[in-house]
């Protein structure tokens, strides 16, 4: 067992109406990864914000290398060797890698001018240590999310951090890039760093973490070595009850053709043919950049069409903007709730009803009573954890924000619902609730197109699976025949074909 470098004891924190942390303990050991686990809103991010001084704690103490500390901002924590990589990355898109890494800590020559050469060289070394091949002068906006994460880690290395916190780092990562992140984490472990790793993908806990601290509703449940844990008892500690079967697939009778796409093409997708039936889930698999989201956005009227015909529920369908798509019964739930899924300044109720205000109109006004009833219905049904429906979306935990977006989608009562990464950043319990909701809609005859980078989710919930690569349909698999290998081989065969051509 490594030496304890960081110890949080009896941390307490309240927000108006929410007791977010009650006497929570967390220990970090040298050369080990500590998983911090809990449902949405359990208080994981809040605990990390307290650690790094973003939020002031109401009680408890923090011992770092044996000494009590109390940071007033992230900068102080960083200077002391505690770095945090946030759920939402904090890099400046228009700036270069080395500029971001040295932001606020620029190296200067004696003359006072920036010492760009040294900064670039140091950045190059750091990038090598995290094993990415990138030009330090590359701009952040040209990097993939995985690469951006590596840059954040490199930044932590520059600060010579002894404790590195990662808040849901694989949340937005495609499977194949998770492995390279794990490689770097193992290397950091070997260098004796202490890591805190927050995730909802429990499988990763067993792969990369040494111990786990579990929170539930802001309370400390326990700290255990991972080898004493298995999936079942971990989940029941997190949610406080037993959860059976992760993917509650139900078979429903396939209805009539709901969405028929023929030869849809534009700058992003090419010759897409697909048929979506009422009461089924059509999973869309593919690598990042395979055109899955672009296909959804095209159907939703966000990208112009060049060719192709679409019918929805038997009627010709065409949308030039989302409002037209919604009017014809198609709703697209975006993959990035922070950027374009929610209005963070607005309250929960306002966000949920935003797309269906015409349904709760009374004369010219919004029917406030109807709104309250519908919203509290959703809050209850989907189990959104919020002190009130007037809480701003920005104050909810990530998973609960996602549930708000889903409620908004459901409230439009669509015929066709496109879900883009519907369970990103959502805890096991809530995931299951969302799967149940998907089933419920299926039974009501909604046709669902589900884009997901999580292979088990695609395999577990879809009736059929469509594989996309490079903006084209590469194949279709039935639920019975589909396996991870078959999907990958459909994708890979294409890559090989391409390579063969280019050689």
């Amino acid at each position, binding site marked *: 067992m490594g030496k304890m470098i960081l110890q949080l004891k009896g941390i307490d924190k*309240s927000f*108006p109406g929410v007791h977010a942390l009650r006497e929570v303990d967390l220990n970090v050991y040298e050369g080990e990864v500590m998983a911090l686990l809990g449902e949405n809103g359990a208080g994981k991010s809040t605990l990390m914000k307290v650690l790094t001084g973003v939020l002031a704690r*109401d009680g408890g103490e923090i011992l770092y290398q044996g000494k009590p500390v109390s940071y007033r901002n992230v900068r102080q924590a960083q200077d002391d060797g505690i770095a945090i990589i946030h759920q939402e990355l904090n890099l400046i898109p228009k700036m270069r890698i080395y500029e971001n890494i040295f932001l606020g800590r620029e190296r200067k020559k004696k003359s006072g001018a920036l010492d760009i050469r040294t900064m670039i060289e140091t950045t190059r070394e750091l990038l090598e240590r995290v094993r990415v091949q990138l030009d330090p002068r590359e701009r952040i906006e040209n990097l993939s999310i995985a690469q951006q994460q590596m840059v954040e880690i490199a930044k932590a290395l520059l600060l010579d951090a002894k404790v590195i916190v990662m808040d849901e780092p694989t949340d937005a990562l495609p499977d194949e890039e998770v492995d390279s992140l794990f490689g770097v984490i193992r290397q950091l472990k070997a260098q004796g760093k202490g890591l805190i790793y927050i995730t909802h993908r429990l499988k990763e806990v067993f792969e990369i973490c040494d111990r786990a601290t579990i929170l539930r509703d802001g309370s400390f449940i326990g700290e255990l070595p991972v080898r004493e844990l298995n999936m079942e008892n971990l989940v029941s500690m997190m949610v406080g009850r037993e959860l059976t079967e992760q993917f509650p697939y139900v078979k429903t009778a396939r209805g009539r053709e709901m969405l028929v796409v023929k030869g849809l093409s534009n700058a992003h997708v090419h010759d897409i043919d697909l048929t979506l039936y009422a009461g089924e889930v059509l999973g869309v698999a593919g690598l990042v950049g395979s055109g899955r989201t672009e296909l959804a956005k095209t159907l*939703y009227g*966000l990208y112009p069409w060049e060719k192709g015909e679409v019918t929805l529920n038997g009627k010709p369908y065409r949308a030039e*903007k*989302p*409002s037209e*798509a*919604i*009017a014809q019964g198609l*709703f*697209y739930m*975006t993959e990035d709730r922070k*950027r*374009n*899924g*929610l*209005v*963070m*300044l*607005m309250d929960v109720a*306002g966000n949920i*009803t*935003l*797309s269906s*205000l*015409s349904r709760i*109109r009374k004369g*010219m*006004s*919004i029917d*406030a009573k109807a709104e309250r009833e519908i919203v509290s219905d959703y809050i209850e049904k989907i189990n959104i954890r919020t002190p009130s429906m007037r809480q701003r979306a920005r104050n909810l935990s990530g998973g609960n924000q996602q549930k708000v977006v889903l409620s*908004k989608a459901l409230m*439009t009562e669509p015929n066709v619902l496109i879900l883009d990464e519907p369970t990103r950043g959502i805890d096991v319990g809530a995931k299951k609730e969302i799967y149940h909701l998907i089933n419920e809609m299926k039974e009501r005859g909604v046709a669902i197109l589900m884009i997901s980078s999580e292979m088990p989710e695609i395999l577990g919930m879809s009736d059929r699976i469509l594989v996309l690569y490079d903006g084209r349909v590469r194949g279709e698999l039935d639920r019975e025949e589909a396996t991870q290998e078959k999907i990958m081989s459909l994708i890979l065969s294409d890559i090989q074909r391409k390579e063969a051509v280019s050689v």
Partner: protein
Amino acid sequence: MNSQSKAILFVLMLVCAILGLALAASVVNACHSFDNVLFLDGAARSARVAQAVEAGETGLKLTLFQNAFWLLGLAILLLAGALWCLARLNKVSERSRGITKLVLTSYRPLVILVLVTLVFSCLHVRFFTVGNFTNILRQISHYAILAAGVYFAILLGGIDISVGSVLAFSGAMGAFILSRMPENSWSALLAIGAALLIGIGAGLANGFFIARCGLQPMIVTLATMSIFRGLTLVLTNGAAISLSKKMAGYGLFTGLGQGAVLWGALPIPIILMALIYALAFYLLNRTAFGRHMYAIGGNEEASLLSGINVQKVKTLAYTISGLLAGVAGIVVTARVASATPTAGQSYEMDAIAAVVIGGTSLRGGEGKVLYTIIGALIIGMLNNILNLTNVSSYYQTVVKGIVILAAVLLDAKSVKKD
């Protein structure tokens, strides 16, 4: 700290606050009954005291008046004590901190309004009177009407600085029509209609360039500001168009600026202003359009993806701003019975200042329209007290600038904490 000492602090705070307020109120009242301005220079003051003593006046009021400065100082000390207790209480009590924060963030403009009223009432006898408040309200009605429109633009995260010029042009057009048709009894309605249409047209133009062409609101309205000021100069030929009683539409038209109801107690511009704010409040808080406004201001992309017709809402918002500039144009022109080419100049700044002092974030997406009128009121009261106390109008401009800075500073601070 235990609950007992919390209770003691709380009671202490209440006692200090009540004593302080009561003392301040009775001192100010005593000064008022001696018809004295608190900060009149020493000589006049002692003369007034001497006069009162000579007249055989004795009693509590005189004593209060004589020692006004000391007593007010004591009152301030007491209030400071109350604040100190509050600060201590906030340190130890979660609930008290929550309430204080709520009051200071959600109700800040109201708190400022109350404070400003209190302080100004101490500064001049005639400040806290019905007549003076009617006067202030009538004065602010011009840019408060503009501010209601500008609020729509700012809520979207945009801005509209063309309103002052649109005001001038629509007012000038109204006066122009009246003076060209001195015999026609319909001319007043025609003038009003034309002014409103000009407002709507200007707003539509702004909206078109901002929403459809995706240009920056600041640049677009800077351009239209210049255009409409120029058009006003062209129309008026650089000189004022005066309205005379001989014109057929004179009474009806000027009534909108000069008239009053309730036996002259309630000027029409105040009624117009109240109506406009009531309507704006309804639109923004009770209708889908209002929701869409807040949503777009908060996150335009998310609004688009939620199926909101972003371009339409934006265009409509700037059109409302233009329309209200048209209304203000009528009111201003009617008030002085003449349209000058420089009318409404720098009114857009007062309007923006009112919105900002009313606590609306220039980033868009949050704010309360009724606080805009409070913002306008604070500016109006400031101008008023500076006038009453004979401060030169040059300084008034300086003070206004400082107040705006202070307001924005408070806003920035509260955003950081949130």
